[in-house]
Each structure stands twice: as structure tokens, then as C-alpha cells.
């Protein structure tokens, strides 16, 4: 994924990016490289709250497991890019939330390569967007020719708080094996008006009612994270700013 030339919007992986912000940050430092040895176990929580471009290359050895939890909330432009390679029987888990308001542009871009048989990957991404914010998830799952018994899942949902916000979601599959399970689902919607009214009819002010529903919407992505409580608290505080 190391790119030497400055990307433009013609590059699929940068199509929705804030190119001015990318230009200002160019050249990017080398991606962080994480290698989990065979049978190893890796966990990491990433909070992007300052408007950065973070690139991570993650390689899971045979039977290794990795679990990443991402909260993408800060800065005018925040991008988290993951390139994951799975060897035989490895297991990769991503739980991510991006929450943006104002004119924020937030992106999560993943490429998960099932290089060998029997690996599993599961990505759950939730975006909450208000104002004229843009939230993008581009997720590619690539299954190599002999990577049979691959089991991958992409579960992507976005909630728009204002009609002026934008969500882009593109789960993408590139499969060369013939015995695989690759599930992908994507939904973009608004808070249910009747549910909001129901909550308010019990005494919750509109902002609190929205916050409760949004909390439920992103809940679950941080399950099992080491600093689950801190991630939840940060997400909730950010949601509180939007409603």
C-alpha cells in the first residue's frame, strides 16, 4: 500500500478523501508494521482524535489472532487505513466506529487479504454523521486462489443525523477460491422517528433520546476491547456533541 505519488480522487482508495489535507500531510511516514507470529494474539485500540492519516500493515501468522478496535472521531480529516494479511487459520477482528459532525471527513479503508486457507475475518463498522460531515468505509476482502474455507464478514452501517451529511460505504470482494464464505451487509439510514417520539413521550429530552439510540447503534463494536469502557465513554461524549 505504500504509495509514492500523491494520490488524487481518481485513485479508488482516495476517492472521497480530503485531498488538500492529504497534500498537506504528504509525504506520509512509512506505515506502521505489525507482525503477529504463528499462534500469537494481538489486541490494539486506536483512537484517532487529532485529524491524522494512520496507516497500519498487519500480518497474522498461522493460527494467530488479532483484534483491533477503532474510534475515528477527531480533526477535519481523519483516515485510518489497514492492510491485513492472513495466513492459514488466522483470525482477524475489527470493530470500528466513526463519529463526525460539522465539516469533518472521516475514513476507514481496509484491505483484508486471505492469503491461505481457513482464515476468518470479521469487520463491524458503524458511522454516525451530522452536519455536512462525510464518513467513508472502503473495505476490500481479497481471497487468494488456494485460500479455501475462508470465512469473512463485513457488517457496515451508517446513521445520518442530518440530510446534509454523507455516508459512503463500499464493501468489496475479490475471490479466487471456490469454497469460501464471504458475507457483506451495508445499510445507511436515519434514526427512526417513531422510536424517538416514543422515548420522548416518556420524558427524555430530544437530545437525550437521540443519544440513547445512537449509543445503542454503536454499542457492540467495542465488545471485547481491552479499554472497552474508555472507548465507549469517548464515543458517547462525541455523540453528545452531535445531538
Amino acid at each position, binding site marked *: 500500500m505504500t504509495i509514492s505519488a500523491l494520490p488524487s480522487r481518481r485513485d479508488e482508495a482516495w476517492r472521497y478523501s480530503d485531498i488538500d489535507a492529504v497534500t498537506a500531510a504528504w509525504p506520509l511516514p512509512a506505515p506502521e508494521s505489525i507482525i503477529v507470529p504463528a499462534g500469537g494474539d494481538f489486541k490494539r485500540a486506536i483512537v484517532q482524535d487529532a485529524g491524522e492519516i494512520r496507516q497500519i500493515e498487519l500480518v497474522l501468522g498461522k493460527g494467530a489472532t488479532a483484534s483491533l478496535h477503532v474510534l475515528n472521531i477527531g480533526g477535519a480529516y481523519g483516515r485510518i487505513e489497514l492492510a491485513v494479511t492472513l495466513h492459514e487459520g488466522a483470525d482477524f477482528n475489527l470493530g470500528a466506529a466513526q463519529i463526525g459532525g460539522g465539516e469533518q471527513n472521516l475514513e476507514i479503508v481496509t484491505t483484508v487479504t486471505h492469503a491461505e486457507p481457513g482464515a476468518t475475518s470479521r469487520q463491524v463498522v458503524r458511522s454516525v454523521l451530522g452536519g455536512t460531515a462525510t464518513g467513508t468505509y472502503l473495505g476490500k476482502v481479497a481471497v487468494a486462489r488456494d485460500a479455501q474455507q475462508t470465512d469473512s464478514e463485513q457488517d457496515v452501517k451508517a446513521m445520518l443525523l442530518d440530510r446534509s451529511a454523507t455516508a459512503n460505504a463500499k464493501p468489496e470482494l475479490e475471490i479466487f477460491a471456490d469454497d469460501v464464505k464471504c458475507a457483506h451487509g451495508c445499510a445507511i439510514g436515519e434514526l427512526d422517528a417513531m422510536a424517538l417520539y*416514543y422515548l420522548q413521550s416518556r*420524558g427524555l*429530552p430530544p437530545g*437525550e433520546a437521540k443519544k440513547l439510540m445512537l449509543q445503542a447503534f454503536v454499542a457492540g463494536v467495542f465488545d471485547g476491547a481491552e479499554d472497552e469502557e474508555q472507548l465507549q465513554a469517548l464515543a458517547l461524549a462525541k455523540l453528545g456533541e452531535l445531538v
Partner: protein
Amino acid sequence: MLTIENLHANVADKPILKGLSLSINAGEIHAIMGPNGAGKSTLSYVLGGRPGYEVTEGSATFDGQDLLDMDPHERAAAGLFLGFQYPVEIPGVSNVQFLRESLNAQRKARGQEPLSGGDFLKLAREKAGLLKMDMDMLKRPVNVGFSGGEKKRNEMVQMGILDPKLAILDETDSGLDIDALRTVGDGINAIMRRPDKAVLLITHYQRLLDYVQPDFVHVLAAGRIVKSGGPELALELEREGYAEIAA
């Protein structure tokens, strides 16, 4: 407690309520009956402040305050409770959390201290017991996977916890089997039959009124109350049908 005068309301620009007047005093239980399309549910939503229900004329005063000028959550804090005909399922939001936050939002609006987690659970357990509802159901997401009867029971548990002055119950009896009907009826009596409280029951059938004896019965037809009387009016309606009475 509640005074409605010459209320007109539109839904999607279509007039539904056409000059409805009704007065409810503390300590009274009123029943509104009427055929499909008469405007019963519209009345409950207008009083509950549901968006899209537009009042074009008339007034509704609740405890001396202009009810129609208040937001839904302000109406709740003032002591109004709306029992929904179709309680809404809200995945991911636990009943207990939702109710505790709602109750404490109401208390805050009234200048009262919030209830602690322990005190809230005690209260919730007591009210769930009253309605014969399992505490485990209160911990589940709001109404998700509940049967029709369980949803209605949950409405009554919520009413017990929030302890309103005035409850407007929109077809709380629909979808209930005979045993659940009795439980819900007993619950309404236990929670709301007090000198300082009042109930407006909206129903199609006499059945619920066997358990919750109304002081007054009104017939709503074509957006207006066309006849009012005592409990005997409900029996008369059951016998004769709406067409005869409302004509």
C-alpha cells in the same frame, strides 16, 4: 385536570378532529369509544404531541398549562402518560436504562433529585410484580421480541414507574388474552385509581371496562364527541352498535 375545547386537528392536511370538547377532573376515569376512523388514536397522539399531528383550532389545558404548547418530554414531566396502541421496538436500548433515564429526566425537570440505581431497581421490581412481568424482560431491549400482550404489559409497568397524573391509554386492551386483560385492568386500577389522578381509556370494546369501571363514557364519531353518559352507555353500545348510537 384536562380541559379540551373545540379541538380541531389535521393529519397530513386531512381534518380528523373536528371540534372535540372534553373535561376530565382528578379522580375520574373516562372512556372514549367509537368506530374505526373516528379519530380516537389521533386524539391520543395530539394530546401526546406526536410530530405530524397539527392542531388547527381549539385548546387543551393540562393542570392550568397550555398542553399544546409543550414538547412531548415536557408533557411527560408535567405528568402526562401516553400508553401506545402499538408500543415501539427499540433494538439495543435496554428497558431499564431507558426508564431510569426517563424518570430522572422527568425528576430533573421538576427540580427533584435523581433516583439512585438501587432505588430505581426496587421501584421497577415492585411495578413489574404488580403487572406479573418478569424482571428479566425489563432488562431486555425495549419491546424487542415481546408478544403483543407483553408489550401492553410493559406499557403498564412503565406507567407504574413514571407515576403520571393523567394516563391516556390508547387501546391498551387490544391484543390481550383474557388473563392478561385482567392483569392489565388490575394494574390500571392499582396505579391510577386515586383521588389525585385521572385516566382516559380509548377502546373499541366493553371488555376492559368490566375490569376498569369508568365514571364517564363518551362516543367519538367523525372527529367529535357525539354522546356522553355513565358506564351504562358502554353496555348500550355493545348491544346496539355504534351506527345506532352515533347516528
